[in-house]
């Protein structure tokens, strides 16, 4: 907290946000020891939750902060899984392959960014989908994958199913914590100020000297890497790789749903959205097609009536910031001016 004259203060950490960070740390610690008490089914479900949080946070980083709405992020999900299969087939330890695959995917996203980032709005959105469709076709050409028949991560079979489940759970938990941590640190850094300036007004950000393209590229590559981690982890839990399932636009639909409902451009929003999505899936996932119709309709309603999502609404009503990535100005007296609005 920095003191300025006249009793005006600029604050970042508040009592509630310190408390929130403490609870996050506590929750992570509890999750870490949870497998001791939980059954196999619960461990698998929580692993899925961690993967959803990664997907939501990464899509939010791209769309909410970078202003880049993509409907082709499944390309990185699919590539993360595909390279894991490839590396494991080449003899690398399957668990190491997961992360090596994500690194390769992140590296591939860099050249893609050079021309995709020159597209704007809807053109970028569908352009990414084309990239995904093309990559899907190219992966199908690999003989190892056997077209749409697919293959599986056979080398995981050397571990017994109990160990495998818990290791994947911990890896998913650690990946989620690390990726959220990286994003949080990034958003609070100097680059983060640039990112939030772009989110609020791209033209204005350019005019004060923010390097818009370079900043967006950073987010693009981070999102590609994170989503590839999620894809590789998903492969580890499912073990089978069918290109159609991994390169499905449904993944992007999930990401959009989570972020729109939770709060586009809100760090906490993506996490909230992922948790809500997880709960909805647990209760309504068995309804099949009506569940998907419900997801789509909810996305439409939120985009029309609550574009800042539930967290945006909570933040506005209760003036609450749990994991602050911006600053705000606090004037003496009852009125509070929010820094980034």
């Amino acid at each position: 907290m920095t003191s300025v004259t006249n009793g005006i203060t600029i604050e970042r950490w508040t009592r509630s946000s310190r408390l929130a960070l403490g609870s996050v740390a506590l929750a992570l610690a509890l999750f870490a020891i949870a497998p001791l008490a939980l059954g196999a089914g619960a461990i698998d479900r929580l692993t899925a939750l961690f993967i959803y949080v990664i997907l939501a946070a990464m899509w939010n980083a791209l769309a909410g902060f970078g202003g880049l709405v993509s409907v082709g992020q499944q390309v990185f999900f699919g590539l993360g899984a595909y390279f894991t299969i490839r590396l494991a087939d080449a003899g690398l330890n399957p668990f190491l392959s997961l992360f090596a695959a994500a690194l390769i995917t992140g590296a591939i996203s860099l050249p893609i960014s050079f021309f995709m980032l020159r597209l704007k709005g809807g053109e970028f959105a569908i352009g990414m989908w084309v990239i995904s469709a093309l990559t899907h076709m190219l992966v199908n050409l690999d003989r190892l994958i056997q077209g749409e028949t697919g293959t599986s991560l056979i080398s995981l079979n050397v571990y017994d199913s109990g160990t495998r489940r818990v290791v994947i759970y911990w890896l998913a938990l650690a990946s989620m914590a690390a990726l959220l941590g990286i994003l949080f640190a990034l958003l609070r850094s100097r680059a983060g100020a640039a990112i939030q300036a772009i989110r609020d007004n791209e033209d204005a950000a350019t005019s004060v000297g923010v390097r818009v393209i370079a900043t967006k590229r950073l987010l693009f590559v981070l999102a590609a890497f994170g989503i590839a981690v999620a894809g590789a982890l998903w492969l580890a839990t499912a073990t089978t790789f069918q290109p159609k399932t991994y390169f499905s636009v449904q993944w992007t639909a999930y990401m959009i749903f989570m972020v729109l409902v939770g709060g586009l451009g809100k760090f906490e929003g993506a996490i909230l959205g992922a948790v809500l999505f997880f709960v909805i899936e647990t209760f309504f996932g068995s309804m099949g097609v009506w569940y998907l119709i419900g997801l789509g309709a909810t996305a439409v309603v939120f985009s029309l009536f609550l574009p800042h999502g539930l967290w945006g609404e909570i933040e506005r009503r209760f003036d609450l910031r749990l994991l602050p990535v911006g600053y705000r100005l606090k004037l003496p007296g009852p009125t509070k001016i929010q820094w980034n609005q």
Partner: protein
Amino acid sequence: MIDTLIQGILLGGYYAVITCGLSFMFSVMRIINLAHGSLAVAAAYGLWLLASKFGISPFTGLLIVLPVMAATGWVLQRYLLERSARGGALLPILTTFGLAIVIDNLMFEQFGADTRSLAPFIGSLSYDSWELPGGTYVGKLAVMTMATAIALLGGLQVFLGRFALGRAIRATAEDPDTAGLVGIDARKANALAAAIAMVTVGIAGAFLGMRATFDPYSGGPQLLFAFEAAVIGGAGSLWGTLVGGIVLGLAQSLGAQVHPQGFLIGGHAVFLAVLFARLFFTGAPFIGKIGFYKTGFTKIRAAIRSTP
């Protein structure tokens, strides 16, 4: 080889039909409708339902389906797109994407996973062909699709150029505020444009159903084809749509000759190649406005960029 080229060009006619609605809406409202393909498939299902349940030929069925599509376009613009466009340029992408998911899955719920086709309801038209000198055959349906594409694009051109309503739409596309000053109701012009776009989507759905099969999830690929043709042909005129469609059709037909999966790969690859070339050699816009190039703002931005 000649045969492949002819088939590719004629396939381009279908792409021109499905693309013109997408680029028309983008040029007027600056919205890319992600439910575009799904709406075309919905129109195809509408025609299929009329044909299989009531024995109405798909051509007669269009008399019912097209007004419904026009009304859908109007409602879509007035109640969904207009509202979400006020929240910025990104929201309509999300709104229309959500809409596509709803439409696709509603169709799945209603019609199941079976692939359908309108071919059984149009008699011999689906396989009739003319023989060209040199022993090549061209399908009558494919020629008809191409003729429709040309008629549709020509009709739009005349409508936008010669009719007061068409001029109102062009004025709104250029600058909605100024159009308002001279007494044009921009909301009405946009809704009208959306209605027209949906009519072309309905026609595209009819040809999709007649020339091939479709299922509830065919909308995504159709959207991608339309988008690719729009970007490839995006020289700024309606006729660019036809060129884009033909280039895409040729690339897919040639690709299919090389490899079983080459049809899709060829199309996507030529799209990326065109995109790459245009971005790096000219820095030009991708989908232009109807009948005129992007001016003013783009030029100013280009000038700022080139100043050291």
